[in-house]
């Protein structure tokens, strides 16, 4: 085996570590994206029987953005197994309990339920903020592009930018702004 072939094979079959910034991302759309990397669906050598999935580190999980009214309306169900053991938790309550759980459940539910799913989830490393152990971060060699740009809040603009922002009309002097 030549050196080139050896390196090519190594590069093809090695597990790659990706990092994904979840701030202001829809967790359910992100789950569909992360799934591709966790299962190796983005590689042309993919086969359900070959173990070609990658590791994904997700940072800023506490800053996920649920669409619409989902924080209030989405309900997570859990049953202890005992009679009367059912419980329903709203998304914002679950998020307060553990800020990574919403994304974790979104990814878990996006994959088919088979024996491999638990092991695939082991390759997903979720962190509520950007503090990732250096040991993990040292492996990372790729960043997954965010699905949508992070919106810039009004208080993040400088006063100068706000004043110079293009506008269609000036309010009349005697117009009362409420």
């Amino acid at each position, binding site marked *: 085996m030549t050196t080139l072939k050896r390196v090519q094979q190594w590069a093809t079959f090695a597990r790659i570590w990706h990092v994904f910034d979840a701030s202001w991302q829809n967790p359910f759309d992100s789950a569909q994206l992360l799934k591709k990397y966790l299962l190796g*669906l*983005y*590689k*042309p*050598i*993919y*086969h*359900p029987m070959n173990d070609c999935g990658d590791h994904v580190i997700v940072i800023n999980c506490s800053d996920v953005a649920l669409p619409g009214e989902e924080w209030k309306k989405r309900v997570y169900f859990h049953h202890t197994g005992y009679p009367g053991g059912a419980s329903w938790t709203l998304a914002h309550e679950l998020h307060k309990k553990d800020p990574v759980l919403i994304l974790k459940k979104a990814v878990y539910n996006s994959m088919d339920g088979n024996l491999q799913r638990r092991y695939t989830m082991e390759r997903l490393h979720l962190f509520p903020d950007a503090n990732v152990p250096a040991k993990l971060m040292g492996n990372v060699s790729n960043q997954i592009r965010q699905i949508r740009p992070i919106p810039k809040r009004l208080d993040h603009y400088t006063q100068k930018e706000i004043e110079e922002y293009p506008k269609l009309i000036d309010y009349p002097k005697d117009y009362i702004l409420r």
Partner: protein
Amino acid sequence: MVFLSVVNFVRSRGPDEFWRKRKIFRLAAHYIGRRRNCYSVTIKMVHRALVYATKGRKLRKDDIRDLRDTRIIAGCDQHDIKYPDFKEGLLRCNILLNRKSLSDLAAWEPYSFKALTDIAKQKLQEDGLNVTDPPTNVITRGMLK
């Protein structure tokens, strides 16, 4: 339950109960427990297995087709082109490769696959469709004239 020769297999046809059952047991030779020993259980299992086999012939083709699609989509993603666009581009160039060829190229011949995506992109761009990152290394007849 095992036929040691063709002669025994020929003898197993006929009205005789033993030989009739023996044909069924032969099909259930690899089952476990009563499934292979009791005829009333065996016949159910064998009928079921045959139904599964019939359905499986169709499912296997579907699975292979899905796998090939997955691989082609993965290859297309690497070169920033959508699968429907890629197919449309190839069709307009009269490159009539099937899924098997394309997925094999994507997995084993990545440079050939990239050439195909370049050709598809160039064709789509010439036909006025919106292409992100058009290739610069494809020379077409239109350019030479």
